[in-house]
């Protein structure tokens, strides 16, 4: 792969999952909130399927980002993260992004499990 493409891939790996985490969280929480209050309930958006859709989409992108980072790590075996840029920088952020996306994905999984296990709007 060319350095340019690796670099693009690296930025996707670094930011793709992060953006989806933000989006997934805001939408997920907002959806439940709307569902559980009179004003939002009027629209009658079914909570569970939508939550599933949101969280799974987010998780999917995160897995892609993780995969991208993993690919880069594999592609740049030769270089160390403190050699000369840009390759070193690409590897550096790929390692970072891999960790980040693993954590993001786990958050999404825990959210999903919580959704399956709980009745929407049941006061905790």
């Amino acid at each position, binding site marked *: 792969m060319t350095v340019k493409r690796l670099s693009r891939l690296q930025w996707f790996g670094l930011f793709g999952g992060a953006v989806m985490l933000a989006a997934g969280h805001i939408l997920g929480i907002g959806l*439940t909130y709307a569902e559980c209050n009179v004003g939002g309930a009027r629209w009658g958006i079914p909570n569970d399927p939508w939550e599933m859709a949101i969280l799974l989409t987010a998780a999917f992108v995160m897995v892609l980002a993780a995969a991208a980072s993993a690919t880069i790590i594999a592609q740049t075996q030769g270089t160390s993260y403190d050699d000369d840029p840009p390759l070193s920088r690409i590897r*550096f*952020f790929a390692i*970072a*992004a891999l960790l980040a996306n693993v954590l993001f994905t786990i*958050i999404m999984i*825990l*959210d999903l499990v*919580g959704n399956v296990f709980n009745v929407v709007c049941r006061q905790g």
Partner: protein
Amino acid sequence: MVVVTERLTRLEHQWQARPGVLGWLTTTDHKRIGLLYFWTTLVLFGAGGVEALAMRTQLARPNQHLIGPETYNELFTLHGVTMIFFFIIPMTTGAFGNYLLPLMLGARDMAFPRMNALSFWIFLGSGIFLYVSLAVGDAPNAGWFNYVPLSSRHYDPGHNIDFYCLGVIFNSIASTLTAAQFIVTILKSRAPGMSLNRMPLFCYAMFAAAFGLLFALPTLSADVIFLFLDRNVGTHFFDPAYHGSALLWQHLFWFFGHPEVYILIVPAFGIATSIIPAFTQRKMVAFPLVAIAELLVVFIGFGVWAHHMYATGLPTMTMIFFGAATAMVVIPSTIQVFSWCMSFIMGTARFNTPLLFIAGFIFMFVMGGLTGIMFVAIPFDQQVTDTYFVIAHFHYIIFGAAVFPIFGGLYYWFPKVTGKLPFDRPGQIAFWIIFVGTNLLFFPMHILGLIGMTRREYTYPSGLGWEPYNFAETIGAFITTAGILLLLGNLVYSYFRGVESGPDPWHGPTLEWTVPSPPPDYNFAVIPTVRSAYPNWEPAPPYEWLDRGHQQVESEGVDGVIGDIVGMPHESPWPPLLALTLLGVFAMLVLGKFEIAGIMGIFTLLTLVGWHSKEPQES
């Protein structure tokens, strides 16, 4: 050789500061601004500490009435507000960050030097503003979290909460300026060759903190704006009678408030990750993981806010979202803890005062972190929320994990700032006193919380088994104070009696150790280039004297490729003036004289025009 001295004199001429008080008033030098921040925050730290001691004395024994309820409420409110907004954030970012960032990045100053000065003067103004409220007997009294409706006009008719609202906005202007400043400086002012993967971890920490401030503070501002309107105009944001909601305040507040606690702690990580390599003479273990961990802790920290609201009756499903984020926000910290410990082990640790404080910091941070992990369990959180267990948790974090590194950092960078070596033995003794004191002060709080003592009680009954723990805590508080006084006293003594340190007493890894101590006004006579994250250990041939003007290098952002040579602004009288007009605006707002405040605002705009009347020289 002649050439060298000639160029040095030219640099001197370009960069040297105005003499006297005027020099300090109009300074744009990040080092001087850092020192101004340091002294101001130190004073406010004293104030916050005295407030804490007063409370501990009141609580030493049951049913005491040394302090009345009203005073006590003002005390704990001011203690929280002071320590968070007026000590730790300005100390770590304002003082340490300002002084060190350019030195570590190989820059001659921040990206926006005048804005940097402005942030200090605004900060000073907000500090004065807050403590005037105490002087006039209208100090904020509804807790730093300031929940409505307790803080609404109806239940709190005085000016107390108006001081809180405006003081917080005032202060957050300063923090926002610092944050923007740091992000741009870190992205644009790095020395040639310092690609992001070679940036010192301290700068990553500062970047993370700045990112947090930049995105967290606006929600707080929005929140207090709503409250100010509710109180003074009569809007209905938090008014249940109009389907407003007291929970809206809490959501907006904690959306700021939780990132906030990471903003407090992350710069401390940065200080730790600067001290550890220097005192173990080994590069940080797992550098990329630590770097991303510092960013992740803040980023994920934006998704956990409602774990402060588990008892408010949110739907379980909503709480799960925050529980999940809370669970994973732990991991960046565990990564760092082990990376620090392994660096200790793999290197040759020299347990001087700075490293001692970092070791203590790791212990305290793990203590606080473990109780933090317990809050992942929602029912347990709901059981101990608003008890002394929580106080124990976040004081282990905020005092143990945020303030210990500040003390360590003081000893670590003292030679750089003063050119004198601090005496080590008294420092070590001070460490042990503080370590024992803080644990005696904070550990019993865990037990107190579990056996039922709730927060923010100005007094408590006897017979519930709370007495011994409270008494022990009070003793601990005074021991800690003694330790801190010894620590600072030793620094003062070292300043006058200490031996010359030379540029690099610790054989430190980063660029600040390549320049003389104290650093010259222009920081680097020759702009360095960087081939490693530890440039003082792996020097690279320097770039060039930039002595033809008041200039600095602007890099392209990611890989440290030189983008441009830019002229830097000189000293300016406008920042303090602008801050002064703002102080006027806020004073008038708190008095409810909105028209006069508006006029003051016009003056603010005029100062801005004056500010930009003189353009930095072209290169």
